[in-house]
């Protein structure tokens, strides 16, 4: 049997319809030819996918920045600072993350105030060099040596 002829057979050509359908499903919300014409749509889809990948990190970064800004604003209103709060809380072994702190500052302002006061009381006991204490000692904080 002549097998050389058989070896010349190439694999059947893949159906483009399904490959293009995968692209069109993702570009369904685009405008004009970018939605329906493959060679145009694929360019914009590739850009979109790149942005999606980049955006995953940016979203986290933006959220952290926003929380930090809100906590800082809340602290400054109460005469403290973001650094003082965070470092004071760390020394008291209160491990609350930025998201929770930001939510507390908005929805539970009195809890947030007591956290700033605890941190300030702790820093008054064990001052940190270089961290300027802006406010007078917090009123109404009774430590009883527990800090």
């Amino acid at each position, binding site marked *: 049997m002549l097998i050389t002829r058989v070896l010349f057979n190439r694999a059947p050509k893949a159906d483009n319809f399904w490959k293009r359908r995968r692209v069109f*499903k*993702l*570009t*369904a*919300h685009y405008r004009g030819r970018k939605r329906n014409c493959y060679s145009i749509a694929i360019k914009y889809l590739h850009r*979109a*996918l790149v942005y*999606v990948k980049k955006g995953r990190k940016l979203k986290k970064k933006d959220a952290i920045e926003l929380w930090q800004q809100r906590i800082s604003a*809340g602290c400054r*209103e*109460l005469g403290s600072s973001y650094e003082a709060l965070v470092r004071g809380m760390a020394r008291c072994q209160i491990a609350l993350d930025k998201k929770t702190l930001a939510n507390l*500052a*908005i*929805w*539970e*302002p*009195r*809890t947030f*105030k007591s956290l700033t006061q605890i941190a300030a009381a702790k820093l008054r006991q064990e001052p940190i060099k270089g961290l300027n204490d802006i406010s007078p000692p917090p009123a109404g904080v009774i430590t009883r040596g527990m800090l």
Partner: protein
Amino acid sequence: MSNSHMFLPSGFIRTPLQNGLGRYIPQLQRITLKFCKNHGGSRGVRDFIESDLMEFAKTNPGTVVYLKPRRHRSPCMVAEYLNGEREYLSCHEFSRDEVHKWLSYMCTRSGIPVMRFRKYQHTDYPTVQGVWNPFTHQAPEINIAEFPHEVLSRPLDHGPTATEQLIEIFKKTQIEDPANKPPN
């Protein structure tokens, strides 16, 4: 990936009338199964009706089951919910198991339309202490204070004015008058 290509409405998770908080009430009001007695596409539905339907009806006493045998029509099921929403599903060429699974899916749904949830938590009472407002941490004395106020109108990080500093310097340079000293 952004979800715009799915064209789904988006919203926050909710449940009708806090279902499940006290008693759980299945939201499916009635289910209508339409099928043909002869055609092959309805075979799965017919098998389901013969075998599993009675058990389904017993386990879901709050749901009314209607059967509509219609000649030369492809099978379908229509679920109607307590909030008035309708859900149509074609059961053409379904197997008996598939019919059963889709039916139990309809049972567990509330009538709220399928949407993209923005958050998987919801609360009607997000705050216990009261939401922050600009007056939360202010002293209540500002309510009855008349402005301009001697203390409240000053900036917070003012520090001594130039006049006050000069007065301080002047006082330091003063020699104590022996006549002002208290007698020892």
